[in-house]
């Protein structure tokens, strides 16, 4: 089983990298970009095919390591 975890910064948390990327896009002359927030994607391979167990494992992985829940949110998607 494959899963994808997306980690994003919470609203209101300053994202200097996102700001720099936004400024770069604007400098290329791209119009219509109002804001950029940078996040992370983790593609995870899981043993077995128990969906509920996989979700529990991935949630534990996010809470323990993959996201810092002080400043980040996470979303789990089983593919």
């Amino acid at each position, binding site marked *: 089983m494959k899963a994808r975890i997306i980690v994003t910064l919470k609203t209101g*948390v*300053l994202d*200097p990298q996102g700001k720099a990327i936004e400024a770069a896009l604007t400098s290329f002359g791209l119009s219509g970009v109002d804001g950029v927030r940078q996040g992370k994607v983790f593609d995870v391979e899981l043993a077995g095919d128990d969906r509920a167990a996989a979700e529990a494992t991935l949630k534990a992985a996010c809470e323990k*390591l*993959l996201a810092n829940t*002080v400043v980040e949110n996470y979303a789990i998607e089983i593919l």
Partner: protein
Amino acid sequence: MRAAIVVFPGSNRDADVARALTQAGAEVVKVWHADTELPAGTDLAVLPGGFSYGDYLRCGAIAGRAAAMDAVRAHAARGGLVLGICNGFQILCESGLLPGVLMRNVDRRFICHRQLLRVERADTRFTTAYAKDQVIDVCVAHGEGNYFADADTIARLEGDGRVAFRYCDASGALTVDANRNGSLNSIAGIYSEKLNVLGLMPHPENFVEDLVGGTDGRGLFASLAA
């Protein structure tokens, strides 16, 4: 004073902090990150600066979950002293021993320069050799030192007197220019609730010899070893 310095893959300031502690009169032992216990009789656990695990995932994230950190957590819970400098401060935040997080510097640059700090209180185990509101000259070297926590956490830290050091100018004023990494409330270092855990971004261990520019860092190690 027996100090145990925890060395992670990528730590690189362990020798400097060992030297500063030895100079102050402490006995120093090194502990590997995979060790599950601190040496018997450890008074102070030190998490040195560096780039543990290459800063992969987030600075301090992987080191914060290392086996030795369970021992450091148990040591802190018993009231033992813990000092985290630079990457060590990031590890303390990631391990849950201190609140908040060190984000990317506001101007996105790695900063490396002399830095003045205001000592917020001189009545903890880390600061008795300083005076309250004393301005000390040390240095900083980091890319992710921008202290951030939610409003409730900041209010709690301020209300309980848990800010240890702030970035300041020569008069002790908290200016925007002095706060180069963009930390909330110019916070350079904080204490745990019981004041036995200190994390700070600047490097006091750099400035313990006139030969390399100053000795204002000595006070921290002298306080600990007293």
